[in-house]
């Protein structure tokens, strides 16, 4: 306001204050766009633009030597869930793809549920610490979040592989005679994803629990509620936004996981990310890879949309 005042004075007596203010605002908006330009251009070139190219590629014909032929085709999208029989040309469901889709969804949901089971008490524990030590606990959760995902996956591999800590220990104690095969199984992938994505569950849960009004908890106990009842009827409903946020934050990267299933699943247990990679490597079916990528992106966007709608509705109810 103060600035627009000086501007109108400088602009002379012919221009009305309102016009000068509008001109100032236009200029300011232009400056703001110019300031955003470098970031927007970088993102357009190395993030958003290429995504549009993927969309285009998903509608092209595959070149069996890698790359594409510039001819419109819906084969790739078709092949996401269907395939033609090599012998009698009949249509079938693409079992290989569907089973990988199903495994991805199953493992991501499993990871999310496990992360919630472990993450909820952890977040609650941190939120109920005295103010001074709380930051330290939070720091301990944050550290793994910022350390290299590959190294954390490698660390969990060292724990569960046949010559790893768990098997060596069990063999040494004499509980088992032969190592338990954990690597290259769905279990290994789920453990790995739980391990690397757990902080993503704890952090938003903690953010909601920190704001929890413990007088309401106290009121619950005063009205003769048991701990379980307080948990179910008071705490969980109040931290629901955190539960939703944490679940989405774990589910999305799990669904698109690439490194963890590659390292811990070997070539045996593929997830969607590995299936996509395969199309650009040995598969040499770029359009199918592009269509699969777009499918993954769509699922993620739907999950985000659900999240945004849920949280905005809840925000409205509170306000």
């Amino acid at each position, binding site marked *: 306001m103060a600035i627009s005042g000086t501007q109108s004075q400088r602009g002379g007596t012919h221009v009305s204050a309102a016009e000068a203010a509008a001109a100032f605002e236009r200029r300011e908006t232009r400056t703001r766009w110019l300031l*955003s330009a470098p*970031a927007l251009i970088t*993102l357009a070139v190395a993030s958003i633009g290429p995504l549009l190219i993927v969309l285009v590629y998903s509608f092209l014909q595959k070149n069996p030597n890698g*790359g594409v032929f510039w001819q419109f085709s819906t084969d790739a999208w078709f092949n996401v869930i269907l395939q033609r029989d090599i012998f009698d040309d009949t249509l079938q469901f693409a079992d290989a793809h569907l089973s990988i889709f199903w495994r991805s969804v199953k493992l991501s949901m499993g990871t999310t549920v496990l992360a919630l089971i472990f993450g909820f008490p952890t977040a609650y524990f941190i939120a109920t610490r005295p103010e001074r030590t709380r930051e330290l606990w939070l720091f301990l959760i944050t550290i793994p979040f910022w350390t290299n995902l*590959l190294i954390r996956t490698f660390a969990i591999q060292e724990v569960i592989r046949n010559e790893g800590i768990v098997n060596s220990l069990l063999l040494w104690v004499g509980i088992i005679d032969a190592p338990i095969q954990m690597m290259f199984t769905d279990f290994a992938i789920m453990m790995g994803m739980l391990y690397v994505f757990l902080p993503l569950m704890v952090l938003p849960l903690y953010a909601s629990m920190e704001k929890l009004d413990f007088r309401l908890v106290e009121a619950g106990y005063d009205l003769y509620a048991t701990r379980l009842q307080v948990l179910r009827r008071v705490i969980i409903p109040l931290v629901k936004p955190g539960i939703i946020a944490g679940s989405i934050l774990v589910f999305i*990267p799990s669904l698109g996981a690439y490194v963890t299933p590659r390292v811990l699943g070997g070539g045996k247990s593929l997830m969607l990310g590995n299936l996509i990679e395969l199309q650009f490597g040995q598969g040499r079916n770029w359009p199918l890879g592009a269509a699969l990528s777009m499918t993954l992106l769509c699922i993620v966007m739907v999950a985000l949309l659900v999240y945004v709608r849920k949280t905005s509705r809840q925000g409205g109810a509170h306000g």
Partner: protein
Amino acid sequence: MAKATFSVRRQTGFATIALVCFVMLYAPILTLMIYSFNDGTSVAIWEGFSWRWYERAAANEQVQESALLSLKIASIAAVLATIFATMAALATTRTRPYRGLTAIFAAINTPLMVPEIVTAVALLIFFASIKVATGYTGIAYLVAAHTAFCIPFAYLPIRARLESMDATLEIAAADLYATPWRAFRRVTFPLLWPGIVAGLMLAFVISLDDVVITEFVKSAGQDTLPTYMLGQLRRIVTPEMNAISTVFLGISVMVVALFFFMTRKKN
């Protein structure tokens, strides 16, 4: 009357699960670190303390090259991303909503929403055609890709800092006939500095850690430390990997710890 020890904040078993959780998070990393000092080749049987795997990793030329490339890319990308993010943060905070503001927000946050593998594949397709068209296969592709996905991470702390700052100081500067640039340099920038440093550190760590996008964008012979490690993990694992990981973790933890204390001071 409740027992003296009764606390409304306590939930049965929660503390136990929380502690299990912390142990679960740290035990694998700590084991990995401990066995990097193991004299033997095994990653499970302890055979005495030694630095030999560190020496071997340090003498490994591939490790040297990839570590250097990692640092180079992370430095350039983090600086670029921080500059761009600072400008974007100035443009998107402390303003009345204008047309396109939401679009700018959405654009900046795309790298956070799009699965990494999808971005990686998209960049592979896009850069492959540029590589064919121009013949250039240098590290600019990696720098561009890293800069793009670092922008939202640099943007978050800078924006948070800006929003907690008072605009009156800048208005005062303007009233005292400071040009916009001078007001920025003498007033806004010094106040914003901690946010910028925090953003720079986050961007650096994020770039240093990236595996997936780098793996798809890199040209032949352009391994960063994480992609080199990913390649090695397919083979037999020796404690040399533990040694590299330990150093890598040390650097990340140091940067994050610095970031944590800096942002804490602000509050």
